[in-house]
């Protein structure tokens, strides 16, 4: 029997039991839709996070922090994100501001610049307002060079050789909700406050500064690089104001972003005598990769759950096929008496499941895509992720704009999986149908 005739015959059988076939197909639709929705959302989420990260990252930089642990807490203000990672460590090791030179000397050929970052929680206030923020002490000229795309003034100007009382502020310090508010603007005189709790009793330090520039919006996660919720003061001023010769982070700019360079310098620093395993080095690429692998894992887990629903649909198909097989025993007997081969009977039953799989898969992919977009709109509307930021300072994390991504691989994969499950679960009933003995099948009432 020709394939086309086999499908035609199967289709006539399906059409006869529309409701039953429809419900069976619905199972496949739900399974496929769940898989497609989850995959396209997580893929979109991954793109968003990676994109946001890369905005605030330079791939040719390394971040050196104290602590032998995995991910040190680079700059703790990354929209509340960076603050979560390890950091600290129990040892007495201190990273000093002039360790920048030590690092530079470890591999001068591969490092073009090193930069110390000192940071504390504090406040910035004017006569009208007072905001919690992160005060970051950096060398303006170097910082500008390393983060040339993000340490950029939206208004005012970032001086290369700043006065001690110069301050550059992040976008969300002046406009926390990004709705056009201007709490501080370039040229304003502000008071910068810091509570020194390392002395007893804690002492409130403050000085008057002049806003030189407001930064352009950086994006959700500034990691290592500039952040929307921080303010920046010159290193010399920070050293005096915080009364310290230590720094929290040293940013190392490499000659290029090759993996070999990154690995070489990372190892050089981590294994050096000077730092004796007391520091950890993170590359931006590693951070992005780590996040991506976490998202992938989560996505795999979610899709696994969705796949279970498809499995349930498969069992539904098997169930309905067995019922159908029993109902159609006599019909199978007739077909065999008419000269149909067992193989063709098998194909007729399998093609019914293929039809269910194809229809269910197609509708499922469409429905999944719609679902993904609906969920994405809900997320972007400042929903759940809006609150994640929190952290310290003014940082209310950015609401993320997730654009669901549906790749051809996902479409084909989901389609194939849907048909595959349908066919696999139809194998047993189809095989049983094909094995029916014509004499007995014909006698069946």
């Amino acid at each position: 029997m020709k394939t086309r005739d086999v499908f035609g015959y199967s289709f006539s059988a399906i059409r006869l039991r529309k409701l039953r076939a429809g419900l069976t197909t619905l199972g496949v639709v739900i399974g496929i839709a769940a898989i497609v929705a989850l995959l396209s959302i997580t893929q979109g989420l991954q793109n968003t996070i990676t994109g946001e990260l890369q905005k605030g990252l330079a791939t040719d930089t390394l971040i050196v922090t104290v602590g032998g642990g995995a991910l040190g807490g680079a700059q703790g203000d990354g929209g509340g994100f960076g603050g979560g990672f390890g950091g600290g460590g129990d040892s007495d090791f201190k990273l000093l501001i002039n360790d920048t030179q030590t690092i530079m000397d470890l591999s001068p050929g591969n490092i073009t610049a090193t930069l110390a970052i000192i940071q504390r929680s504090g406040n910035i206030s004017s006569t009208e307002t007072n905001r919690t923020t992160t005060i970051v002490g950096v060398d303006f000229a170097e910082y500008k060079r390393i983060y040339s795309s993000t340490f950029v003034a939206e208004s005012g100007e970032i001086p290369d050789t700043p006065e001690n009382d110069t301050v550059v502020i992040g976008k969300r310090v002046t406009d926390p909700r990004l709705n056009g508010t201007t709490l501080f603007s370039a040229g304003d005189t502000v008071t910068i406050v810091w509570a020194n709790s390392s002395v007893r009793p804690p002492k409130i330090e403050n000085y008057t500064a002049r806003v030189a520039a407001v930064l352009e919006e950086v994006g959700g996660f500034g990691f290592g690089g500039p952040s929307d919720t921080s303010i920046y003061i010159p290193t010399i001023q920070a050293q005096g104001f915080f009364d310290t010769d230590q720094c929290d982070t040293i940013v190392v700019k490499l000659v290029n972003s090759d993996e070999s360079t990154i690995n070489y310098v990372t190892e050089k620093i981590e294994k050096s005598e000077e730092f004796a395993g007391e520091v950890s080095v993170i590359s931006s690429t590693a951070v992005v990769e780590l996040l991506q692998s976490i998202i992938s894992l989560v996505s795999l887990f979610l899709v696994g759950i969705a796949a279970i629903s498809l499995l349930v649909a498969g069992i539904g198909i098997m169930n309905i096929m067995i019922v159908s097989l029993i109902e159609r025993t006599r019909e199978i007997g007739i077909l065999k008496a008419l000269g149909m081969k067992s193989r063709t009977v098998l194909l007729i039953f399998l093609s019914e499941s293929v039809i269910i799989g194809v229809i269910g898969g197609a509708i499922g992919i469409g429905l999944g895509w719609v679902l993904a977009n609906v969920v994405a709109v809900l997320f972007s509307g400042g929903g759940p992720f809006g609150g994640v930021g929190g952290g310290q300072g003014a940082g209310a994390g950015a609401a993320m704009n997730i654009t669901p991504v549906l790749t051809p691989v996902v479409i084909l994969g989901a389609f194939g999986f849907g048909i595959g499950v349908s066919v696999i679960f139809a194998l047993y009933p189809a095989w049983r149908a094909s094995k029916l003995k014509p004499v007995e099948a014909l006698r069946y009432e």
Partner: protein
Amino acid sequence: MHSSLLEIPEQINTETQTKWKAIHMALVVEAVDLKKTYMLGKIPVEALRGVNLKVESGDFLAILGPSGSGKSTMLNLIGALDKPTAGKMLIEGVDISTLNDNQLADLRLRIGFVFQFFNLIPRLTAKDNIELSMSIANVSRAERRKRAEELLETVGLKERMDHKPAELSGGQQQRVAIARALANNPRFLLMDEPTGNIDSKTANEVIALIKRLNEKKGVTIVMVTHDQHLAREAKRIVQMFDGVISSDVVN
């Protein structure tokens, strides 16, 4: 197309082959000491206890017998739906015991079944039912359509070709079933109580059709029935009783 049906033992030389063909091709069905034993639970039931029968091309044979005489078993064996326990069932000279499932299916393509309960596929129209049996035999779509219409004309139901079985009377359904049985140019029609489930008036139409097919078109017919009246229409009547043939007379 179905070379297996024409196969001749290789050891026979060409001259004898010709003779062999002449004898055996004319013999459509040949049963040699045919035996069939069923297991009814744990009790063996001897349905056939040594049947010898020959059906020649062009024959119109009625196998008559009360229920339990073994005529249904005989029907299943002639139709290659079942295999004998002992003895031989030769269809066009081929012993069905030697055939595998696929070969049996191919053989059945050449046998035109007509059942007591018509056994049309309810969801298909009269025409589609006839086309179905041709699609099993891989006949092209265009030819199927043409032939189905011709066959429906032969059985006098052309104007009813788009009706489903439920919309046809018993006699009409049986005529569609006969058209279906003829679709693949079978070597013989095998009928199981062809009028057993239709009223006597329309039964006459069916009987007339069967007779016409045999007389005008030379279709070989083997009919199993317990209806004396119907059997009388055949050219030859074989009486079965208790698993053996008790009489075999030309009508």
